[in-house]
């Protein structure tokens, strides 16, 4: 077991997942939507003693998660979130998946119905390099997280940090915390990504809650 655990220590999970893990309180109830191979969940369950659950659409990954002893169901965020009772989790996490949903607005509302908090991370489409691709090359970006051409990317609802903040306002959602990661995934309070997140922030992590709860 120690070997497997070492495999999932902080440095080995994706950088946005590290930021998410820092946000989540130990011992809380967490639902990770689109939990992939369960890296974040495994870390949270073993290092932060959370009561963790996951939803993942790909059978192969669900199989991997359950084989690791994680409580994960094969399902679709857009179909399955409605089943859960209101406020049944402390945190509902959606990491780098919102842009791939058909109905991001409804998914976000559902997350805040079933969770006291929602944690959302995504790649910022307003990031400088994306803007330069469009401005100078006149083409969609194909690098990093946007590594597939427009006709086969699952990311059908990309947004900028500013777009996302607008959606939160529209939904009456309180942004409790916002972290921007720059090109080297730094989150310090001195970098350009701190002062100009929508231009220099490559990724963003938001901690949200509903107003009046």
């Amino acid at each position, binding site marked *: 077991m120690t070997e497997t655990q070492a495999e999932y220590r902080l440095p080995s999970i994706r950088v946005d997942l590290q930021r998410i893990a820092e946000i989540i309180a130990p011992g809380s109830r967490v639902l990770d939507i689109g939990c992939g191979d369960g890296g974040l969940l495994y870390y949270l369950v073993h290092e932060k003693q959370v009561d963790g659950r996951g939803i993942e659409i790909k059978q192969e990954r669900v199989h991997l998660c359950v*084989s690791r002893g994680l409580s994960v169901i094969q399902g679709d965020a857009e179909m399955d979130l409605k089943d*859960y009772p209101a406020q049944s989790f402390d945190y509902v996490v959606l990491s780098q998946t919102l842009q791939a949903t058909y109905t991001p607005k409804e998914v976000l509302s559902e997350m805040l119905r079933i969770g006291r908090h929602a944690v959302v991370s995504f790649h910022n489409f307003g990031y400088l390099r994306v803007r330069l691709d469009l401005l100078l090359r006149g083409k969609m970006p194909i690098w990093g997280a946007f590594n597939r051409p427009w006709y086969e990317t699952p990311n059908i609802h990309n947004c900028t940090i500013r777009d996302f903040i607008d959606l939160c306002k529209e939904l009456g959602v309180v942004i409790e915390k916002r972290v921007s990661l720059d090109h080297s995934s730094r989150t310090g309070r001195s970098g350009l990504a701190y002062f100009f997140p929508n231009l220099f922030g490559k990724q963003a992590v938001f901690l949200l809650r509903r107003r009046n709860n």
Partner: protein
Amino acid sequence: MSQVSEVVGKGGKVELGNLTPLSLDRGINLGPFTMAYQTYGRLNADRTNAILVCHALTGDQYVADPHHEQENPGWWDRMVGAGRPLDPERYFIICSNVLGGCMGTSGPKEINPATGKPYGLDFPIITIADIVRAQALLLDHLNIEQLFCVIGGSMGGMQVLQWASSFPERVFSAVPIAAAARHSAQNIALHEVGRQAIIADPDWCGGDYLTHGKRPTRGLAVARMAAHITYLSEAALTRKFGRALQDRKVVTYGFEADFQVESYLRHQGSAFVDRFDANSYLYITRAMDYFDLASEHDGILANAFRGAQTRFCIISFTSDWLFPTSESREVVHALNGVAANVSFVEIDTDTGHDAFLLDEPKFMETLQGFLNGAAEHRGLTQP
């Protein structure tokens, strides 16, 4: 109170319901009655490592018999053993023949103490909940308060769901495989075909064949043949047999078993009648037909699991058309509705409903992973 040593690594038979009879769903009492069961491994000092295996319609308590030479290996022997998901070094594994069965537990072929003759159709109609109540009495007898896990496929999975609903505090984890929370119309229809085949056999003698020294083997064989098709899939039948002919190069223009698939089915039918009682087949198929967990809870399945602390692992198979994934999903939706701890995996295979009995590596891995995770939470050490 029985001693642990009495039940380790061997079979047993126990008379239950002496003091308090078993109160059946149909409103009558049964008692005393006999439960035949098999155990593997050793109950730990805290009595926390017991796993109850629930067998399917035509299964029995002989899950695996690593200690005794048997003509046929146990029906789930690939699941039980050192390094396998159900490891007797780690767990105390119990399997009892279901109530109404024909392998030693009270059923229609056993002697009715009131008349001194086989019960036949005097045996009361039983339900999945009755089967589970009888198992609970066996656990009382074994002095096991809480099961680490209840696991089973098909009708075994129905029992698992019933356990989790009826005795949530006695079930730490539950693994219903290729199961459903209710028997579908199609499945009831298929069972009815099998029952009518048995009843139409003149040797059935109105259910009283044992006192007449007869057995309705033709009817039972046809019932088995029809049922066996439902345990496979079209893809598996095509892969295994296609249109291949049996020991001949051309068709005979008659009704012999020209095709391999016919010969295979006939063999399945005739092998089955040697080991199974026709009336048990009627009773147990009926128990499955009557199963509808939501109906006891105002038609809302989620209510069957409200407040459950049990860790669930639901498993289905892509090519299972008898208990399709959609049925498992219904259970998952209900469990999510009460925010239960649930895992759900659909295993990709072409082997149909029977997949849970076969060598399906992904299935084994999933199960082993789930059990290891649950064991960690239960504080059970590695063997």
